[in-house]
């Protein structure tokens, strides 16, 4: 086992590194093609990362990306594609904002109440797709796309003044939340405040790792994801696992919008960030569904987001960052697949060589780790 570990780490690192290099080169080509300097934008963006106020922005943004990506990753581990994280987090944030504006309990009760509201709303919304998949065989991809669209309509409906909405100028809001539900930030001096719920993101990451890697449930989940029939044969009900994974994914998704809601905006308005769920898909892919990998990916994404506005002041278009995000996802998935196939072929050759040399088969069987545990 030990002898192989170094090469496996190399393989694991090679994927993202190749992908990032390819993405940077391709973006540079795009820049050259549009008649710009291909290096300066990156230099500017790297420079931005050194400023403490930008760092605070990056951490804040990354916390939301991180939670959304964790929600997507849980689905991925179970071979489920929860494309509905986007609708789930928006609806959940809105419900939390509405509850926060109308209920006024002491902070010790108010904050858990808001968190639970978000968790249950998210889980309810993804649960619809889960139930439809389990009972009626509806593909969760299509169901969650539909639910995203329905969530958008529902949010616009709830913004109406005679429902929960409060008009502030031209903006639709849900009214200011009571202060007992605000979560104080971590003061970083002149650089600004880090959202208090960044800690929640970290805790969720740790919880994700423990549940998936150190509990029986996590093992069942990964086993069902790797091979549903094998898991079913060993007594895991695939339907139950699908529903649980979907509910769990939605519950986490529900929390994705809360760092900014409870830490900064205190209302759900037209300016509330949208599309985090879709970005979360790319981030989960880049981070290979591992809690540490996703953290790096989320920080990378947030850096591209928050450092790019500076480009506008130097004659570049900040949209180059969006192109980079797209290129990164694409080159990531391609390079992962290529590296995986290369690793498989290598291993086959190695096993073949060992068999030819008369070694005992199975001593170095590392890819079958799931079944071996």
């Amino acid at each position: 086992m030990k002898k192989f570990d170094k090469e496996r780490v190399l393989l694991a690192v090679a994927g993202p590194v190749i992908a990032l290099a390819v993405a940077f080169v391709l973006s540079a080509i795009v820049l050259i093609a549009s008649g710009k300097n291909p290096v300066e934008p990156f230099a500017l963006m790297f420079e931005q990362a050194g400023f403490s106020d930008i760092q605070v922005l990056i951490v804040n943004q990354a916390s939301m990306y991180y939670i959304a990506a964790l929600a997507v990753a849980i689905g991925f581990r179970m071979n489920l594609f929860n494309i509905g994280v986007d609708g789930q987090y928006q609806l959940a944030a809105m419900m939390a904002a509405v509850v926060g504006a109308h209920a006024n309990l002491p902070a010790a009760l108010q904050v858990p109440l808001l968190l639970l509201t978000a968790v249950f709303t998210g889980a309810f919304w993804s649960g619809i797709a889960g139930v439809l998949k389990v009972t009626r065989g509806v593909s969760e991809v299509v169901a969650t796309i539909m639910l995203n669209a329905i969530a958008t309509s529902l949010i616009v409906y709830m913004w109406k003044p005679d429902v929960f909405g409060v008009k502030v100028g031209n903006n639709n809001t849900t009214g200011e939340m009571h202060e007992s539900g605000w979560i104080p930030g971590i003061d970083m001096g002149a650089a600004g405040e880090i959202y208090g719920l960044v800690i929640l993101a970290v805790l969720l990451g740790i919880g994700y790792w423990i549940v998936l890697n150190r509990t029986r449930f996590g093992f069942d989940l990964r086993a069902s994801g790797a091979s549903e029939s094998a898991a079913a044969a060993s007594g895991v009900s695939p339907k139950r696992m699908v529903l649980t994974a979907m509910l769990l994914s939605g519950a986490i998704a529900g929390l994705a919008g809360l760092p900014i809601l409870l830490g900064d905006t205190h209302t759900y308005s037209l300016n509330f960030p949208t599309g985090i769920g879709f970005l979360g898909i790319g981030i989960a892919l880049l981070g290979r569904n591992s809690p540490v990998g996703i953290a790096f990916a989320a920080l990378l994404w947030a850096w591209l987001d928050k450092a790019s506005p500076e480009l506008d002041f130097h004659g570049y278009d900040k949209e180059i960052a969006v192109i980079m995000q797209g290129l990164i996802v694409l080159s990531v998935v391609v390079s992962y697949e290529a590296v995986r196939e290369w690793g498989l072929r290598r291993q086959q050759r190695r096993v073949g060589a060992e068999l030819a040399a008369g070694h005992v088969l199975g001593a170095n069987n590392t890819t079958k780790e799931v079944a071996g545990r």
Partner: protein
Amino acid sequence: MTAPTTATDVNQPSLEHAPPAGRRMSWPVLCLVIAGALALTSLVRLITGADGITNVSQMSTALQLAVPIGLAGLGGLWAERAGVVNIGLEGMMILGTWFGAWAGFQWGPWTGVLVGLIGGALGGLLHAIVTVTFNVNHIVSGVAINILALGATRYLAPLAFEGRSGGSAKQSPAVDSLGHFTVPGLSDGLSDLNDKGWFFVSDVAGLLGGLVTNVSWLTLIAVALVPATWWILWRTAFGLRLRSCGENPIAAESLGVNVYKYKYLAVIISGALAGLGGVFLSIVANPFYLEGQTSGRGYIGLAAMIFGNWMPGGLAIGAGLFGYTDSLNLRGGSANVHALLLLGALLLVIGAIWLAVRKKYVNAVITLVVGALVFAWYAGTNEVPNQVVSATPYVITLVVLALSAQRLRMPKADGMPYRKGQGK
């Protein structure tokens, strides 16, 4: 002699009738169902006095809104029939809107159509390279293409449009119209008939009038593409080979079909069709490119295709449904929507009766209760919030999927990875 043969005929589960009831409707039955739906709509119109629901202009708007959805759906159909799930339709549509308007405002609208088509096809080519050659998960690749297309057009738009007259960082200069046509005589006659307000006749006139009044040439092409797709995929050797790649690529390979080639072609055509849908948005529906113009129509096209059971005809009905509900929303008509509640209630009651006849009593009762609730909603209110209307097509799709997902049949190897020689 005759008696035993009939007995065996009855007992034999013959192959032709193997699909469950309702899957394949014969033409007369389909016509009857459509006529029935129209008659019911007409009845609702007479009861409620909401003349707008089968108006000529309503129908013409509905058609215009249905076209981009239908084109995206056709794009999805081509790709999925060859076994490649294409969730990147949205991105390919975005490419179509940008490229169409970019070429359109400089070199005329028809060049715009062509270039938009090519833009979408390029998106399709990228999807094909990633999914077919590199064997990446199809949905993942599609999501990446959606992000990339959005970023690329947002990056290119200021470079190409800013500083031109009428152009800005988010909007292109105006594109000339492709031209409309109205069938002379027929359009006026149907319009007159529609205004009479007669039961059934006027509604049919409204529907047909919408199809012949102020129709863009691109609409005509799009409508023609539905039967054309059916003919190519189901009546030519090329189509048979293409579909065999989606059903069983290993068998296709063993018969000498170059699976890679067909998958590539199908996905490129798929991208081109989605691109055409985008062109329709940026040249016909609006005479300019606008950021965020597609607003998720690629996904809706995908839903329309699934709604239509991976068949061109069903897809067209699905797109029409989405277009019609969209048009209700666009043309305000809160009263019209309110009237449709009654139609919904009636349909649910009929569904309940049908279920009861088929001895599914529990389902029948549930349907009846839902129908009663919808009726109570109709009776108890005077208007319906617009958001209910905008959510309706999605809710209907979910309900239809929930009721019929087991009867829907996607291509067997849809979304599966394939490597040449993997069957050995």
